[in-house]
């Protein structure tokens, strides 16, 4: 899953990016409001972590524009501004959550999970399909109760397919979801991950829709 991180502080941004990567998110990091605006226009993110005090364009302005376009993207404001007035302005300005610095990395990760889950329209934290159970909080995957060991990319791919189980996912859509900028993908990396997932979860767990992409097989 791909997340946009908007943070002007080099050291903090680097830390957040590393922390989100640990949770197997693909992270695009921009340093100012203008770059954030362009990134949000060009790419499809699952969530955005937004600082408020940004060079060039304030975080709230970025948020207003995003909501003005009718975007439903989950946005978590992460800022040093900690007064109630700031929080109210942020949440009323269209943010889905508000976290002040300094903060706890596991808490940030949990809040992002909750935001993404909510955006999916589901209240239960786990995703299940054909006996396969994925818990985003613990990042554990089981098949018929048996734990399955997945690599970070395999996990991210499974999560993406589970989240879009009713749609066919094209290879480029999957790549967009799995990889951040600068993480170049080989021509058949997605196929390799699909192959590995099928090996671990059953050959008919994922079906190939010829010429279009991949989708989870129907249950039963």
């Amino acid at each position, binding site marked *: 899953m791909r997340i946009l991180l908007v943070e*002007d502080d*080099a*050291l903090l941004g680097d*830390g957040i990016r590393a922390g989100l990567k640990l949770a197997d998110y693909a992270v695009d990091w921009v340093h100012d409001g203008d770059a954030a605006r362009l990134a949000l226009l060009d790419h499809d993110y699952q969530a955005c972590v937004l600082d408020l005090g940004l060079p060039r364009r304030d975080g709230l302005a970025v948020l207003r524009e995003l909501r003005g376009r009718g975007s439903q993207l989950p946005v978590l404001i992460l800022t040093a501004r900690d007064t109630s007035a700031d929080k109210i302005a942020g949440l009323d300005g269209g943010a889905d959550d508000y976290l002040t610095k*300094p903060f706890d*990395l596991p808490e940030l990760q949990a809040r992002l999970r909750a935001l993404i889950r909510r955006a999916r329209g589901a209240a239960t934290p786990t995703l299940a399909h054909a006996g396969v159970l994925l818990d985003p909080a613990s990042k554990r995957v089981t098949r018929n109760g048996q734990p399955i060991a997945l690599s970070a990319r395999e996990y991210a791919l499974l999560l993406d397919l589970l989240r879009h189980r009713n749609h066919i996912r094209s290879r480029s859509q999957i790549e967009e979801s799995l990889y951040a900028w600068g993480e170049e993908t080989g021509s058949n990396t997605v196929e390799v991950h699909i192959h590995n997932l099928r090996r671990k979860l059953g050959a008919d767990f994922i079906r190939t829709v010829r010429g279009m992409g991949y989708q989870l097989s129907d249950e039963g």
Partner: protein
Amino acid sequence: MANERRETGLHSLRWRLLATVGVAALLGLAISGVLSYGQAQHEAEEMMDGHLAQSARLLLALVSDNEAHLAELAKRLATVSNEHGSAYEPPLEFQIGRADGSLLLRSAHAPDAPLSGTPGYSVIEHDGLPWRMLTLAASAEPSDYRVQVGQSIALRDRAALEVAGQAVLPTALISPLLLVLLYFSVRRGLKPLDELAADVASRSPENLRPLATVDAPLEAQPLLLALNRLLGRLQDTLDNERRFTADAAHELRTPLAAVRIQAQVAQLSRDADDRQHALTQILASSDRATRVLEQLLRLARLDPLGGLPSRQEIDLAALARQLFAECGEGTGASPARRVRLQADDSPLLVRGDAELLKIALRNLLDNALRYTLPGSTITVFACRHADALSLGVADDGPGVAGEDLPRLVERFYRGGDARGEGSGLGLAIVQRIAELHDAHVQLENLAAGGFTASLRWPLADAG
């Protein structure tokens, strides 16, 4: 506590007014009382003398006309003189006789004074008491009757006192009433001040809005205006402090948040390189927090200074050479940038604090090192211009965006491209040091490219 102060009469305007006006009024009343008392006493004496004269003439007339009925007259007069009148009418005693001193008639208590005395008023002693006497001789010849009337001076005085007392009484009665009236007038007069005091007293410490001057009395206006100016300055200072505190919190929180998250990344990472990177970032973040703190403390120490505690003669050229020797050439901090020195040979003298000026110059140099691209050339300079002495740093970097230029000296302001490495306080400190040295900070993009930041001392004899 406030009430305690208000009760101490000495410092209260109200009590002081009451005391002075009250004492003045009472003094006026007293003087007027004493004067009218004396006047009334004098008038009473005159009236009683007149009374004596009238009675004497009456008696003389009675005797002259009715010598035959003297015995009858004596009887009647005895009854009349015994009837006591009011206190204002002290009993009148009399003797009637002839010029040779023979006594024809006398009242019961009349003093035994010789009738042969010269006519007119006199004071005699009778039974050890003074008497006021009037002797009158018949003017028509051949009659030689003489009449002598007298009053006890003690009784006369008593009557006079009575009269004078009555005259003073209203004044005496009025004074307490006057004091009460004064008290209420003063209170009413000072009511606007009381209201003002109540307004100020009931305020919360955060309420620094100006006091209303519309209803205040004319005399209080200058005080109110001065107070409002003070409140305004206080509000400004407070706003600045609040902004500064908020900014300082923000600036410290960000590196601390970075320390925390990098530490957690190091904890959670399974990859050794990632962990190493996170630890390096923790060090960098804590360095950054330290730098922010140091600069904050430096500014906090500089801020309250009204002026420099001591000023020495300083050669700016020598100062630039010294800083260049310390951290210019061959500095390990930024090997990718070349630092040059351009200092006049002749001394450039200003008065001030060498340590502070060095801090300012070092901040300018730090900025240049931080915000120029590798390969840039940075010049530390101290020069004499036609109109000013200048001490500063120039570079051949990309310069500063026009809209950022005027805001650079603001605390915690960083230009749009800054990557948050600095404390955001460097130029604010330079600005403060310049103020303390009667210099100003000049920041400008050079036409040929590059940026220069300097302290400038205008030369007094410059056109």
